[in-house]
């Protein structure tokens, strides 16, 4: 077990290095002079040269990369080119926003998708199953931002049940925090649930085709109880993988949702930084998002060991 964890950690670190390098290469490929963009028009050549030196863009590529990485290890993601604020300062208050949105969305997606996926699998020839599958298909085909805008229109503007957009930190007012998150979480969760239902369905369908499921029924479990006793655990093996992959798309989906609902999260910071070409910020946020995804992947791998005794035992021998 310990060796397995160690090996996984090694892979995780290697992946981080690879990912950070990729991000750095891409963000360094910027055509044109960064200093000119930062200073805006009207800057003198001296001002430009000074800026270049300040940014370090006049040094060799690898040196810049290594500096970036070492600084990051010390928690320093650099300073925004424009606001001159540390990137960590910019990101810190936004982590909570994106975190609430992503975890809320994922939770909702799972809560919706698990039962519906089971229905879609077990009742796949009757109307409840067909209806669920069809609804999921349609749900998957709807652009998330479109769904969000329509929710804003209906619940925010027409009915005025919920605030159409904006954010209130949890610490300031929990009630308003929740009311502001309802629409975005529902949008993200429902759309992701539609995707998830398919996976849950096919994971359950696979279980239904397994001999042990038939064995379970042969000793007297009903369809549903056999599925809940023997299905969920086994299906979760493949579902955990899917959830890991799904999380990546939930995080990315959050970028769009944050824009629709004007949530001050990492996604909107990323988009703002993209709009202003603040590549230090873009780089920092991308790194954090990718870090999160890789971390989840590692967690998923480790959770297999916990779920599947076959893997656990392999370590023992």
């Amino acid at each position: 077990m310990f060796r397995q964890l160690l090996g996984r950690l090694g892979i995780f670190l290697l992946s981080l290095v690879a990912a950070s390098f990729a991000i750095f290469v891409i963000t360094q490929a910027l055509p044109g002079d960064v200093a000119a963009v930062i200073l805006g028009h009207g800057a003198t050549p001296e001002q430009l040269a000074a800026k270049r030196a300040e940014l370090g863009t006049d040094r060799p590529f690898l040196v810049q990369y290594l500096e970036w990485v070492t600084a990051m290890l010390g928690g320093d993601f650099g300073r925004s080119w424009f606001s001159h604020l540390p990137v960590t300062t910019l990101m810190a208050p936004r982590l909570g926003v994106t975190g609430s949105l992503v975890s809320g969305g994922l939770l909702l997606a799972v809560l919706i998708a698990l039962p519906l996926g089971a229905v879609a699998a077990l009742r796949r020839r009757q109307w409840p199953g067909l209806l669920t599958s069809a609804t999921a298909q349609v749900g998957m085909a709807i652009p998330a931002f479109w769904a969000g805008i329509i929710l804003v229109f209906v619940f925010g503007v027409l009915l005025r049940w919920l605030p159409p957009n904006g954010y209130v930190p949890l610490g300031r007012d929990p009630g308003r925090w929740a009311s502001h998150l309802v629409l975005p979480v529902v949008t993200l969760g429902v759309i992701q649930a539609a995707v998830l239902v398919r996976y849950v369905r096919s994971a359950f369908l696979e279980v239904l085709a397994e001999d042990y499921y038939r064995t379970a029924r042969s000793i007297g479990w009903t369809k549903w109880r056999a599925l809940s006793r023997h299905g969920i655990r086994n299906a979760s093996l493949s579902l955990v993988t899917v959830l890991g992959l799904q999380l990546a798309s939930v995080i990315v989906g959050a970028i769009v949702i944050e824009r629709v609902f004007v949530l001050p999260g990492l996604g909107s910071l990323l988009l703002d930084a993209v709009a202003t070409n603040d590549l230090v910020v873009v780089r920092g946020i991308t790194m954090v998002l990718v870090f999160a995804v890789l971390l989840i992947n590692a967690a998923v791998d480790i959770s297999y060991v916990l779920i599947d005794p076959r893997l656990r035992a392999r370590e023992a021998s």
Partner: protein
Amino acid sequence: MKRAELWVGLALVTAVVAMALVSFVWTPFDATAVGSGPRLQSPGLPHVLGTDHMGIDIFSRILVGARSALYVGIIAVGIAALVGVPLGILAAWLPRWGAEAMMRATDVAYAFPALLLAILLAAVFGASTETAMVAIGIATIPAFIRVTRAGALSVLASDYVLAARAAGTPAPAIAVRHVLPNVAHLIGVQASVSFAMAILAEAALSYLGLGTPPTVPSWGRMLGDAQTYLFGHPTQALWPGLAIAAAVLGFNLVGDGLRDFLDPKLREVA
């Protein structure tokens, strides 16, 4: 039932393709002439679906937009398949450590979902349809590698490949004669699903202003533009939204239908 799924999907995809083809020879109005008609008209005659904020006939624009949708999908999926499939087959052939390294690399690549990569590339190289397509294509490569490798592994482990090797068939011939045809359906399924994803991703990018420029009739762009007028002119957002949903649904259904149709295991489930 499975067939129904496939048929509905095929019908939708055919409709999209037909729209794209028709748009080459005929559109009711010029799909790019700005200010030629009254703006923000409701559906009626002669503008069947109304006009947009620039006074362009929406129906014409929807027709031409089908081209963009297909274009985005074809290029993105094309990149992903052209790179991913050979790499996938190679990964199946490589010795353990080589394959392991390659799969770990795809894991890292998986950490850059299409939208994130597109945003990153847009930040650096500027937003355009091409950037979006390339980003979506690159981000989809790992999916193709995985699918192809999984398929190729089982093909390579099969007895008919063993028999072919015993019959002295060289490796490239095995790849072409045995592996490719037997993973083609998996690739087809993946392509179909990725196609749908590409269309959705392009729409999201256009909404964020990082995708197709406004001059090019694209459903994603139309939807992005139309949402500004949603409160006053809801039908503006309806048509491109429906078009996207229909195309995505079509490709997803085709993919799923193919999968269920081709996977005997799922067909015979108890």
